């Protein structure tokens, strides 16, 4: 009976640890989201500042916003992985979610003010995928 109680406590402890890790990860992803929003605003305004004609800036903003869809898709993928991990509450789902979340957060944090467009190739769920194609969860 003691062994069973101990096992239950271990399982409960692990489950709580998973939940804590996922919650902490969600905080970092939301902070990365807010950081990216701030970067995006400064980036677009800097593009406007540098522009020499209306036609040029309209085309440049259009090009940038199409690229930015890749970042939004990466966030959507990470949020979906986190939601699935919260729901599944398994070791594998948690590890997978934490890994893609870390990838996204590291990439966003590395973006400096005044940098070029986002490094899409480093984001999860972007490389070698057509726009609109859902990633595997």
């Amino acid at each position, binding site marked *: 009976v003691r062994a069973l109680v101990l096992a239950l406590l271990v399982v409960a402890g692990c489950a*709580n640890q998973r*939940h*804590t890790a*996922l*919650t*902490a990860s*969600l*905080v*970092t*992803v*939301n*902070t990365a*989201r*807010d*950081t*990216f*929003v*701030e970067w*995006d*605003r400064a980036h*677009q*305004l800097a*593009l*406007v500042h540098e*522009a020499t*004609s*209306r036609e040029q*800036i*309209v085309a440049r*903003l259009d090009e940038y*916003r199409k690229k*930015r869809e890749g970042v*939004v898709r990466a*966030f*959507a993928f990470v*949020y*979906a992985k*986190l*939601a699935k991990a*919260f*729901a599944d509450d398994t070791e594998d789902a948690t590890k997978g979610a934490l890994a893609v979340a870390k990838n996204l957060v590291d990439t966003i*944090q590395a973006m400096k003010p005044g940098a070029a467009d986002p490094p899409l190739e480093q984001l999860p769920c972007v490389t070698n995928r057509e726009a609109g194609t859902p990633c595997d969860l």
Partner: protein
Amino acid sequence: MSLWSNVKKGLELAQVCASAIEIIHQIIKTRPGKDSDLVSMIGKIVTNVREAISGERTVASVQADLEKLKTDLAKNDAAADAAVDDKFPKD
């Protein structure tokens, strides 16, 4: 709520807050001299922590986190478009 539940909740809060403080530290290190931005970002982190520790995370609540990204980017687009109109007025 039992003592054990309080202790568990406290530990969970401490870990989440520690994570947030680590992020703040990273921001201070990488963005010196940006006081107003820093204060704004710390405020957002605090909000994120509060939201994360209040209530259960569901598919719907995580979806709301994504919708906030889309809404904020749309606001940025509007601000940039307005700046274009200011700089290059339409005929």
